[in-house]
């Protein structure tokens, strides 16, 4: 899987979180999202997230990417936490 595909997966997880909130029709706290959306996802690095993000407002994926919560926009936005090697175009 190339890096761009990993970025795509990360955004899809963000979409899933937004859809969950939309379908709930109410304010959803991050622990609930963690339990219902993020923790069940095979993409998520549970151990690291539990260790480094006690508020669960930063979700680390097993890829070099993750999601962080932006309270002002009420949105989960991707970030990068690991190195990427772009020396080989096939990696992208």
């Amino acid at each position: 899987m190339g890096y761009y595909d990993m970025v795509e997966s990360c955004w899809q997880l963000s979409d899933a979180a937004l859809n969950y909130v939309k379908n709930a029709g109410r304010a959803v706290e991050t622990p609930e999202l963690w339990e219902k959306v993020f923790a069940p996802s095979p993409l998520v690095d549970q151990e690291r997230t539990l260790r480094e993000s006690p508020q669960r407002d930063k979700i680390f994926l097993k890829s070099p990417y993750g999601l962080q919560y932006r309270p002002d926009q009420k949105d989960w936005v991707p970030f990068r936490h690991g190195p990427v090697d772009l020396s080989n175009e096939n990696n992208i």
Partner: protein
Amino acid sequence: MKTTSDLLAAALDDHRAGHVDRAAVAYRRVLDAEPDNAEALHLLGLTERQAGRVDTAVALMTRALQHAPSMVEARLNLANTLSVRGDRDGALALWRSALALDPSNVAAWHALGAASAGAGGAGRAGAIRALRRAARLEPGRAEIHHDLGVLLRQDDLNEEAIACQRRALSLQPGMLSAWMSLGNALLEEGEIEQAEAALKRALCLSPDRPEIWFNLANLYYRQADLESALTCYRRSAQLGLPAARARIVATLVDQGRDAEAEAALAAYLPLDGTDVSSCLEYLYLLLVRGGRQVEARSIFTRLETIPLAGRIYPVECRTALSALDLADGDSAGAVARLENLRSDNCWMFTVRSLAALERTRRQQGWHWQRATNPDPTRPRLTSTTLGNRGRFAHNVLEYVLLRLYAEQQGCVLETPDWVGGAYFELDDPVPSGPLPPWPFCRRILNGFVTGERQGEAPVDRDALSPLFLYEYPLAVRDRVRSWMRPRPQWAPWIDPPVDALRAVGNTVVAIHIRRGDFLHYGYPITETQSYVDWLRDLWPTLDKPVLYLASDDIPAVRSAFREFRPVTLHDAGPAWPGLEFLQDFHVLTQADIVGISAASGFSQLAARLNERASLCVEPDMATGGIKPFVGWV
């Protein structure tokens, strides 16, 4: 002593302040000391781009990235520069790599979205996805909402497109292109007053923009206010938009001001940028309408070799001559005149196909007289574009919407000569007289047909292309299929290929692969490998299968399917000269399994009309696989 960082910071201040030359000198000085300084290479590249030296800019930024592959800004700037140079693929790859480094980079998502929609819609879904992300990341950027709105409208998501343009305008009330896009989207919704207000606001902001006058003219044309439309088209042409010239001619033709239309043609045809193709169709119409067929022959024969707006137009001229042959009863001559021409021209397609059908009819010796309006007291509906905008399936799909609307509103549907009208057992009367033009009516027709729109439905109009249903309701399937039955007289040409397939197999699998103009116009391209992989799984489960391949480029696609020993029209029966596409179409409507070419109206229509198929499939452009096609919902 100043460090490299100090020098770069000072140079960047100069750069930002607009002292580009001074900044470039400083960047060069840094590079003299440190030839591999990635920051200096990148920034010097920027100054080169600003100076218009794109190749040098690309070389410098590429070197910067070799030394600092993680420099996101350099990737973005190199991508933008490649895009300017026309290297779209190179730019897309760099924007993606920038996102691999910084997955929430707004500029990268925005640029990727703005650049990745192909002209024919290939990549539009991905482009919309990218722009939605950019809008989420930076909701306060008007340009992003505007660009997203433009793509959503192209994707028929008009209401959301309107919301996007309104959002853009709430953030940047002086955004000219957002007012223009909003006006056009509202016009499509039939919100005329609001559309007019939006376009007039755009004009207030920039009264010398010809595109806005053009769009306002379209609005008046839509309202059948032809005088106002003419005024605005003329202003648009005066301000330099060549596309307005053909519209001026069209409006004069619609007003019956034939002499003025002819004078306008004489003035516009030699000018660069004129839509000569459309203008020659209007010239034909004017000459025939004026009973000047002999003169028309002489004019189009002469024009065949005379450059117009910089080049010659033999296809259009020969089509005009062929149409004259056909009207004179010389169908063989009409066919011969167009026989060796290759072109995407829709008018030529219609004339050539009608001539070939007429030649067959004459050879078979049966009589065919088109009906006249049986009840002139009833309201009428027509579409003069049915014979010259789009080709076979395009026209059939437009006819479906027109007829559903006409029947719902109690109108007599009058049609010009068109290929579907001759091929299918249709008996619509010929136009009994001109009707006011009705462009941009697709959404309104759909609204009435589906029942979503109430109120007084317009009638006595000439509904202009494009005119497709947005969805094909199951409730009308059998009615539509009952309209689209080939005339029995064509059976000697369309049945043999089907019979030949049935003679060698029990399960006819017909796959259509469209190439031709799809490559040129950027429509989604069906990868043969997707179908090959799908067939490998399916084939062993079928009862004595036989594969039929339909394509406008059989030599290019046939070998990919060789393990299934594909049959083509060439192997399956005598070709119907000039009408081979109808033979392919008939096989697709009779097959047991139909494979559709991505975004092809031709095979989608065949699948919708096929009453026998147990399975219809189409390429899944998102996954690269094959998915079921649901023709009626």
